[in-house]
């Protein structure tokens, strides 16, 4: 893993042991994801692939919310923009006589709308998967962040955006497929979506994209930009007097998270075989967020783990009784917010620090760089100090 190579080789032995824990975790997770197709049934593998799509969104939320403090309740919008861009292209590929997608025929549309035409080009469609959400995020970000809209006001605004987007999609039946959305996808760039073998390849693509997206976010988080983003989160007004425009910093992070959500949406379409407004509305956006909150928003690994865990739990509970899941999910969110605001990753860090403090020799002052003392691939280095524990860790 290039991640391991980047880590400077200085520090006490114990600190180095923890530093390798991050890349080890990453590699371990990668191996698990790669052997999953050999172990899981096609049905379960499909579900895992779907969770991985949500995990890609979670990485973006971890960046925007965890690092940047932007509580985005409308990530479904970007997920949907990417998803529809991909869906439109796939629909045009599979279009029946007259070059019209099936739902247009059912709605009595007679010629292909102008909006759809360029999506027949695969390069255009793939570009739009990223460009559409990024453009919307940049415009919205510059407008909103420059007016110094933040905190709960931003959260409400992003949620309203999700609501408006759903209304727009549902209202344009002939253009978007309305409430049903885009359904019945057969192929994905030559892969037959009804073939378990081809589906396995698609799953590997999704897993690979998740890995790349994670590494991009991780590099961003530990760069100077990542530190600046944390600084903006913790003291936006102070950052102005350091010569930076916080609106630009936040917009960049927001746009990156939107781009990631767009990519996830585009992969969700072939993975699940349909995309409807229900997949990207207020509830769907909140579910994406809850996963990140449970896993730990200050840690990118926590965000991914949380997304996988919550979605897996949802499947398991929904299989038994669909109604109870909603209550359980709500309760889980409340519990995490009240007693573990840093999520499972925070609990893990606390436990590790408590254990490590007991048996680990105290590192020399020169080696106690907090950023390096934590595992390299665990970007939770800038977590709020766990009461006492981490402070002990960096004490000379």
């Amino acid at each position, binding site marked *: 893993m290039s991640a391991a190579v*980047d880590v400077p080789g200085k520090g006490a032995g114990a600190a180095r042991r923890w530093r390798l824990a991050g890349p080890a975790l990453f590699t371990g997770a990668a191996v698990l994801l790669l052997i999953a197709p050999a172990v899981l049934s096609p049905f379960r593998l499909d579900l895992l692939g779907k969770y991985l799509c949500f995990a890609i969104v979670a990485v973006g939320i971890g960046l925007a919310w965890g690092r940047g403090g932007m509580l985005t309740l409308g990530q479904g919008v970007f997920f949907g923009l990417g998803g529809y861009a991909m869906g439109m292209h796939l629909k045009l590929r599979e279009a029946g006589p007259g070059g019209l997608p099936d739902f247009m025929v059912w709605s009595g549309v007679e010629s292909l709308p102008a909006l759809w035409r360029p999506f027949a080009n695969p390069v255009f469609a793939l570009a739009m998967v990223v460009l559409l959400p990024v453009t919307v995020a940049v415009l919205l970000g510059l407008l909103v962040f420059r007016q110094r809209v933040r905190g709960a006001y931003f959260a409400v605004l992003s949620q309203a955006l999700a609501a408006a987007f759903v209304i727009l999609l549902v209202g344009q039946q002939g253009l978007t497929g309305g409430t049903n959305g885009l359904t019945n996808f057969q192929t994905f760039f030559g892969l037959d979506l009804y073939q378990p073998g081809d589906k396995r390849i698609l799953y590997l693509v999704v897993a690979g994209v998740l890995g790349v997206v994670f590494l991009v976010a991780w*590099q*961003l988080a*530990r*760069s*100077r*930009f990542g*530190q*600046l983003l*944390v*600084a903006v989160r*913790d*003291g936006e*007004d*102070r950052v*102005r*007097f*350091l*010569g*930076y*425009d916080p609106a630009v910093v936040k917009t960049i992070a927001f746009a990156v998270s939107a781009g990631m959500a767009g990519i996830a949406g585009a992969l969700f379409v072939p993975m699940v075989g349909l995309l409807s407004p229900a997949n990207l509305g207020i509830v769907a956006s909140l579910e994406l967020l809850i996963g990140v909150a449970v896993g730990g928003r200050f840690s990118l690994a926590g965000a991914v783990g949380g997304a996988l865990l919550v979605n897996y739990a949802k499947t398991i509970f929904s299989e038994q009784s669909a109604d109870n899941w909603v209550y359980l999910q709500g309760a889980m969110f409340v519990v995490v917010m009240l007693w573990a605001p840093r999520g499972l990753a925070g609990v893990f860090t606390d436990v590790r620090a408590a254990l490590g403090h007991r048996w680990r020799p105290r590192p020399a*002052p020169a080696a*106690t*760089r*907090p*950023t390096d003392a934590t595992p390299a691939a665990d970007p939770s280095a*800038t*977590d*709020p*100090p766990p009461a006492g524990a981490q*402070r002990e860790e*960096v004490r000379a």
Partner: protein
Amino acid sequence: MTGLLQIRGLNVAFSGFRAITDLDLTVAAGELRFLIGPNGAGKTTLIDVITGLTRPTSGSVRFAGEELVGRREHRIVRLGIGRTFQTSVVFEQLTVLENLDLAASFRRPLAARLRRRRDVSDQVAAALETTGLADLAYRPAGVLSHGQRQWLEIGMLLAQQPRLLLLDEPVAGMSRDERARTGELLRQVARDHTVIVVEHDMDFLRRFASTVTVLHEGRLLCEGTVAQVQADPRVQEVYLGRTRRETAELVKEAS
């Protein structure tokens, strides 16, 4: 010496209340200027206007020939003006070194900022040295004491490499020792920077000030050396109306 900072006909009003009235002020390059005055004199408001936090109703603030009024805060910083706040704000989640590095890096192009910091730049090392925080470089700023935070803020200011430093009550709430150290730091900084200090502490003022500007109810009351200002009957009167203790000190000092 030319005026690095020139303020002309400045008026600031907050919904009817006149915080600053017809203020003219010139600070020459290389000066260490103290700004004093009773509460509500408009000292912090003046700093806020210079740094773009508050918009004046009328008047002009020129820095090295550039008009500052109407510019956004970070643009003014980029012209070379840095400030601290009465209540120090440092980024507690970041280490002392990262705080300083952030302050030093705003001139870097965006692409360079997407990379990880790999070394300690010269200006950051110099700021660590000057402020005496080198031993704490890798500690999170959240663990610093009040005095250390103020020094970190001054260090961040130095790392920005500004031409004009504005310090808003740098010794407020500090112990005697910390005040003395801050004074020394200030002297050192003033050697090669233009500095404006807002300060209440008379003892600190007497020890470290050269030129003093007295504001009163948003107007310039007088300007001069510490001795001149303290001898001015108007200054005595202004302080008489405010706090008897400080006035007694002033009178005693003047006689």
